[in-house]
């Protein structure tokens, strides 16, 4: 057991740090505005030119074949440099792992490189109005027609869908099926779907509703076998919950910013205590992730253990941001545009965003039940 980076890993870190120092732009407008979305797409393209948009992917799809530890290093440096949020993250972290595992050679060639270059930006379409946490109760359906399928129904909480190019989600392809059976995984262009933006707490349309009234999807845009969607989607949501989406770098950067803020402010010792603790918890999450990365690298299945990480990071993220808001007093609740807002209102944005953490990708209540039943073995 050690915590020493290899010379190669150290060199990789130095290279990333230099590149980011030279290229990270000033703060971009919100990716949930049209201009901001395109600005974020440009940034993704700049990353892609340096093969840094998907460092862990093979070179032929636009990556640079980085190891898991190198990916974690990249993420640490990325967020420490104050680089923009990733507008491509739904595709890269939720869909791509499924394409790598279950896609045809043609699908890989058609979609992955364009995704890496942000030529296609993807939106997820998991939830439905009556199926939030309970994905198995999906009702949107797919009808078999010559050469493909027609999609009907409604999806909601589709993040990025207002401005994205493509969407992915599950539809009930066998009308007689119930629960987990008979669901198929579809890929569809969003311009053929009716998209209704949903305004969030921060006033921007970070989510949208999608309405399908018979949009045609050819067979080549079905991922995996028809009826097998649930199983391969579970691999995807496990990516969403597990290591891949929530690298420690983001929380470490937030914790460091919080500590800098506390040092520059007169901080009550009781509040300072909570801040120090949150910083330490970010450290715990990092160390925990190094352990998980090691297990993944040796071929272990992480499975339900990823639920532990989900609960921990989502509650840590709320705490980090809530502490900053408290620390700033009345100024903590100022938004972008307010002359007195600290750091352009990023703390408030981050606070509101963090509150969704314990809800999405399986609420923390569901995660705790998964831990109790599938890890501890308690009865249903």
């Amino acid at each position: 057991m050690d915590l020493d980076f290899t010379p190669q890993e150290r060199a990789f870190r130095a290279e990333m740090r230099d590149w980011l120092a030279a290229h990270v732009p000033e703060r971009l407008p919100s990716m949930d505005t049209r201009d901001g979305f395109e600005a974020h797409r440009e940034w993704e393209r700049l990353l892609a030119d340096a093969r840094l948009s998907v460092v862990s992917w093979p070179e032929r799809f636009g990556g640079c074949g980085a190891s898991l530890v190198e990916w974690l290093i990249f993420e640490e440096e990325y967020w420490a440099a104050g680089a923009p949020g990733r507008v491509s993250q739904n595709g890269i972290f939720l869909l791509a792992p499924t394409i790598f595992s279950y896609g045809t050679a043609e699908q890989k060639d058609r979609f992955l490189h364009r995704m890496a270059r942000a030529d296609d930006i993807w939106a997820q379409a998991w939830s439905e109005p009556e199926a939030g946490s309970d994905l198995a109760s999906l009702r949107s359906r797919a009808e078999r027609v010559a050469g493909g399928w027609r999609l009907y129904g409604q999806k909601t909480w589709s993040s990025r869908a207002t401005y994205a190019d493509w969407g992915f989600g599950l539809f009930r392809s066998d009308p007689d099926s119930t629960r987990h059976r008979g669901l198929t995984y579809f890929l569809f262009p969003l311009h053929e779907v009716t998209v209704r933006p949903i305004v969030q707490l921060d006033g921007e349309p970070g989510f949208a509703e999608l309405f399908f009234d018979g949009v045609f999807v050819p067979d080549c845009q079905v991922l995996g076998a028809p009826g097998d969607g649930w199983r391969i989607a579970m691999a995807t949501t496990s990516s969403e919950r597990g290591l891949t989406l929530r690298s420690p770098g983001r929380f470490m950067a937030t914790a460091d910013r919080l500590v800098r803020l506390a040092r520059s402010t007169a901080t009550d010792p009781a509040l300072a205590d909570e801040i120090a603790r949150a910083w330490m918890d970010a450290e715990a999450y990092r160390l925990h992730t190094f352990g998980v990365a090691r297990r993944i690298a040796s071929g272990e299945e992480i499975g339900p253990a990823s639920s532990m990480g989900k609960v921990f990071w989502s509650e840590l993220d709320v705490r980090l941001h809530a502490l900053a808001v408290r620390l700033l007093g009345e100024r903590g609740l100022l938004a972008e545009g307010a002359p007195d807002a600290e750091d352009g209102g990023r703390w408030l944005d981050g606070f509101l965003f963090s509150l969704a953490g314990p809800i999405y990708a399986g609420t923390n209540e569901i995660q705790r039940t998964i831990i109790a039943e599938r890890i501890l073995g308690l009865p249903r």
Partner: protein
Amino acid sequence: MNFAFTDDQLALASTVREVLTEHCPATAVRHAGQAAPRDERLPAWPQLAEIGFFGMLVPEAYDGLGLGLADAILAFEETGRAALPGPVVETAAVAPALLGDDALLARLAGGGLRVSVRLGDQVYAPDADLADLLVVERHGELHAVSAGSVRLTPQAGVDPVRRLFSVAFGSPEAVDGGKRELGRRLDATAAHPLRTATVAVAAQLVGLARHLLETSVEYAKSRKQFGAPIGSFQAVKHQLADVAIAIDFAAPLVYAAALAVDRASGTAAAGGVDRAVSAAKATAGEAATRAARVALQVHGAIGYTGELDLRLWLARVWSLASAYGDTGVHRSRLRAAILGTPHLTRWP
């Protein structure tokens, strides 16, 4: 010893509640967050004026009801429950304490004078653009100025309804010179008005928390997941029970603080009253913050959006929890008061 509200106190609150139910529904609150015209940003204000709401704490000699803060505390709680827009606490609770014996009091009591304040550690004046009169503490002195005579800079924040403004003085003449009525130094000190503001806001937080709990319970009864109402799951039940407990034990501290403020009114300093005020604000702020967190968790993603009005109540909780000293500030005052006082006595 009779720690229960009188019929008169209950009747006042109930009248306020009826007015607000009719004239300040959620749609009006939502509209107030978008509207530009003044009157659309002040739903129910004319009707509240009619029932004497703005004169509750004004002496009868000036056409007020001559009540104490404890008499009116449930009425303030109702304004929180309804998320009533406008400088409610500043006009109805702080201004009577600031203006003292003053010709403006009668106008205030009749609902003809809206007031915003920036006192003590306050950084911004809430709803200052809706106020006729602004009372600002500056170099330890209180100045009453007309809203037009100072420069107000909007500081956009989480709450689209309760807007914050920084205040800058345009020209020296605006202060202490100007018209007799609107630009002059006040004799009052900020201590008592600040206590009043803090307790009235604590009551609003209790009201907000009660609304959030009720709304969450209703949602949990109707929303189904995994084939059952989510309110039938123990995890949801226990989170909501904890909110109910937090509210049930915060409210008495707020009511006791109102009594303590009434008793101390006029006297300069009283350790007991400041302790009671800080206990009220710290605890009510925490209960409401918890109610907000649980409401969001119970509603799920939809609570987070403009699809529901929930977000207006959440934003108000955050906004008021940080107003007049947040839980942390008041808890550190409590720490000093409780651990630093050699002979700690309870009240009564």
